[in-house]
């Protein structure tokens, strides 16, 4: 059976236009509930104001939903867009897509980026974004057929497999007849885990021409996969016409090629002696984080562990297949998207099969590994494989599992309540069993799949657990689980997690070295400036289709001689050149920040509109600010005692452990409040966290409906 034989529920024909200066000029709207497909045009104002990527996502979503819309409502949408520079092949890291929706975990907008070929291919097939609305009554597949100029909504047949790695093979068979078809096709999918949990991820495929097989990159955070399956979407398949290095029809190809070639040379020269991204990917960080006491161990209690050497980058370098161009988009020579080939699955429904495991990346190793007290690389691979194919976010899974394990060890949870599982730290088989239960929506796993925030409520109400303790150790904010860095000794990074739009994901700011190790941010004003600049800078990648990693994971040491090495000015200049080269808009580095400020503030207002986005929602669990338990204090006693002397002018030798813990707590939480004041002021927000009308006016987003939202909170 081919795609031609699937039942067509709706069909839409369009003129395929090659992108011009990075834009296709229209977005695709598919309502899977009403079986309706339409095109929306993209005008100059939309390009200027929202740029693309996350900006387009938010703008389309804003118009699609109501103030009261929740994740499961039919009017909720999933919007996916790459951005004007997405699909550039010459500069490393120029093929990212950003997905956004109202999240089941946070009830506000979540945005999450992924590599893979989908976003650029969608644009090459004629669309700057896809907007999926409505809830279908049966499983559907959306097929964007670029060469044919046709979009179809198809009924997914019964034999459509439940999990991504098998679904991929099925899609290849139905939708691609030749090797070339496979190369020019990309699709989105998730697995059964996304159906039964709130932490479902969305898998973005890429056809690996060297391995001649499918690979997947994840838009992991916030349950976008959960919304995808709730809408009953099985897959979104896009097929593009063949393309070359000028597919975006950029304004100045020469400038882009020159900039790209120079950057490739920089990568070739320096990566091998710096982070070895081309060999280890982000997993190089595992040992570094351990060395600096920043690797989450046992639910973020500790920052290092003697067994880290068993799961560090050196180990992964030997485990990943080497010498392949492992970029998640063509031309990414930073090539961190490694994989382990021929992994034999040991547990669950696919036991015995031989599979490719994508990654594991740093976040996965730290989350499902050290943070759960698991230091066995094969277990990490097994969990990584299942999380991906089931469609479960490895970060939320790791952080949630770590929370469960600490609850279990602290006696807040008994084996009776877990269905007989003894979930101590380090219990790999237990963690795997919970994962399989999550995918089936059964047993204790069903509860775990709802995430930490829901579990805290449940444990307190049904198991009589100590709510205050749960709130302190449960590493979530806004409902989203923390990504994998220990922030206790970096106030700025506590803000980097807490003062985010979507929840504690480090993609807005990573300031630990600047703050804690270098002491470059001694004052609140310094921290606030960093918590303005870096979130804006990093937001910009997601507007344009860029990956953050090539910005600062490989750097010519000449950077040390620049005015501000932390910003890596010569790379910032590269981005200015590429953006100008693609769009034909001559911009400056300051202009890039301005673009982000607009979108960032718009997202803050969006949160307000959905009932959050206030100071209260920027609170963080105390575990991320300081030591919660006596054992945690004792593990760093010398440092904490010293701080009592320095910060509070008290004598720790005359204090009980309890008193010392309280003293730290009062001081650290007060510091965080002061940080909030400073950051809000810098961002042009009121002390309640509301962007002022002047801020919105100066950014040119003072639309009546936007102003109406903030006025309710002034």
């Amino acid at each position, binding site marked *: 059976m081919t795609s031609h034989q699937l039942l067509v529920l709706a069909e839409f024909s369009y003129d395929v236009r090659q992108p011009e200066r990075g834009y296709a000029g229209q977005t695709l709207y598919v309502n899977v509930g009403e079986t309706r497909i339409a095109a929306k045009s993209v005008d100059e104002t939309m390009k200027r104001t929202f740029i693309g990527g996350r900006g387009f996502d938010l703008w389309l979503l804003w118009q699609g939903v109501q103030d009261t819309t929740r994740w499961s409502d039919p009017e909720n949408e999933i919007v996916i867009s790459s951005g004007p520079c997405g699909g550039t092949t010459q500069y490393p890291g120029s093929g990212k897509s950003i997905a956004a929706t109202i999240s089941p975990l946070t009830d506000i907008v979540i945005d999450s980026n992924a590599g893979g070929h989908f976003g650029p291919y969608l644009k090459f097939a004629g669309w700057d974004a896809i907007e999926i609305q409505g809830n279908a009554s049966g499983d559907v597949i959306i097929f964007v057929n670029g060469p044919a100029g046709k979009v179809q909504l198809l009924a997914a047949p019964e034999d459509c497999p439940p999990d991504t790695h098998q679904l991929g093979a099925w899609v290849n068979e139905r939708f691609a007849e030749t090797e070339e078809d496979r190369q020019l096709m990309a699709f989105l999918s998730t697995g059964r885990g996304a159906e039964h949990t709130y932490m479902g991820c969305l898998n973005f495929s890429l056809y690996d021409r060297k391995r001649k097989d499918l690979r997947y990159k994840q838009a992991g955070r916030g349950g976008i996969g959960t919304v995808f399956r709730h809408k009953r979407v099985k897959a979104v398949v896009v097929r593009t016409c063949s393309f070359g290095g000028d597919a975006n029809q950029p304004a100045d190809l020469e400038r882009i090629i020159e900039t790209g070639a120079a950057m490739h040379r920089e990568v070739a020269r320096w990566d091998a*002696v*710096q*982070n070895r991204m081309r060999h280890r990917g*982000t997993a190089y*960080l595992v*040992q*570094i*984080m351990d*060395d*600096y006491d920043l690797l989450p161990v046992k639910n973020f209690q500790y920052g290092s562990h003697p067994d880290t050497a068993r799961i560090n980058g050196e180990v992964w370098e030997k485990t990943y297949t080497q010498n392949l161009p492992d970029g998640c988009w063509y031309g990414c020579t930073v090539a961190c998207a490694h994989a382990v080939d021929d992994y034999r699955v040991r547990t669950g429904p696919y036991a015995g099969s031989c599979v490719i495991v994508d990654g594991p990346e*740093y976040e996965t190793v730290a989350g499902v590994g050290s943070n759960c007290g698991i230091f066995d690389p094969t277990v990490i691979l097994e969990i990584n494989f299942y999380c991906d194919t089931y469609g479960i976010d490895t970060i939320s899974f790791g952080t949630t599992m770590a929370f469960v394990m600490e609850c279990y060890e602290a006696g807040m949870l008994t084996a009776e309540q877990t269905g007989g599982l003894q979930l101590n730290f380090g219990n790999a088989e237990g963690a795997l069993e919970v994962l399989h239960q999550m995918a089936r929506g059964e047993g204790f796993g069903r509860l775990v799949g709802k995430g930490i925030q829901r579990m805290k409520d449940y444990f307190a109400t049904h198991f009589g657990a100590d709510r205050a303790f749960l709130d302190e150790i449960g590493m979530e904010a806004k409902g989203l689980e923390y990504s994998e*860095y220990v922030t206790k000794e970096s106030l700025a990074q506590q803000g980097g997690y807490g003062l985010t739009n979507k929840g504690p994901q*480090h*993609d807005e*700011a*990573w*300031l630990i*070295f*600047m703050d804690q*190790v*270098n002491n*470059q941010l001694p004052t609140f004003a310094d921290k606030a400036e960093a918590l303005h600049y870096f979130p804006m800078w990093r937001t910009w990648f997601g507007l344009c289709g860029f990956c*953050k990693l090539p910005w*600062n*994971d490989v*750097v010519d*040491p000449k*950077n*040390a*001689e620049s005015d501000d*090495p*932390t910003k*890596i000015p010569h790379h910032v200049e590269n981005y200015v050149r590429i953006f100008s080269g693609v769009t034909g808009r001559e911009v400056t580095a300051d202009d890039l920040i301005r673009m982000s400020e607009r979108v960032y503030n718009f997202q803050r207002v969006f949160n307000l509109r959905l009932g959050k986005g206030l100071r209260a929602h920027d609170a963080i669990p105390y575990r991320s600010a300081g030591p919660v338990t006596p054992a945690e204090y004792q593990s760093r006693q010398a440092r904490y005692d010293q701080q009592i002397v320095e910060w509070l002018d008290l004598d720790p030798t005359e204090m009980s452990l309890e008193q010392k813990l309280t003293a730290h707590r009062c001081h650290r939480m007060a510091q965080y409040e002061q940080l909030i004041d400073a950051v809000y002021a810098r961002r042009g927000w009121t002390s309640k966290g509301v962007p002022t009308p002047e801020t919105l006016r100066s950014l040119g987003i003072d639309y009546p409906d936007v102003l109406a939202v903030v006025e309710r909170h002034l």
Partner: protein
Amino acid sequence: MTVQNLLDELGYTYPHLVVSVDGNLVRHDAYSETPVPDGADVRAIHLMAGG
């Protein structure tokens, strides 16, 4: 003592450092040959990566 000895002592394993001794930048490939005089002002700025 050389810059490299000092970095080892401090546990500074991170590869993206900007090191200066008394205000003079030290190239990354010269850490082992660059002496650190007594009382010198040594700075090792860690650039961000990861994240």
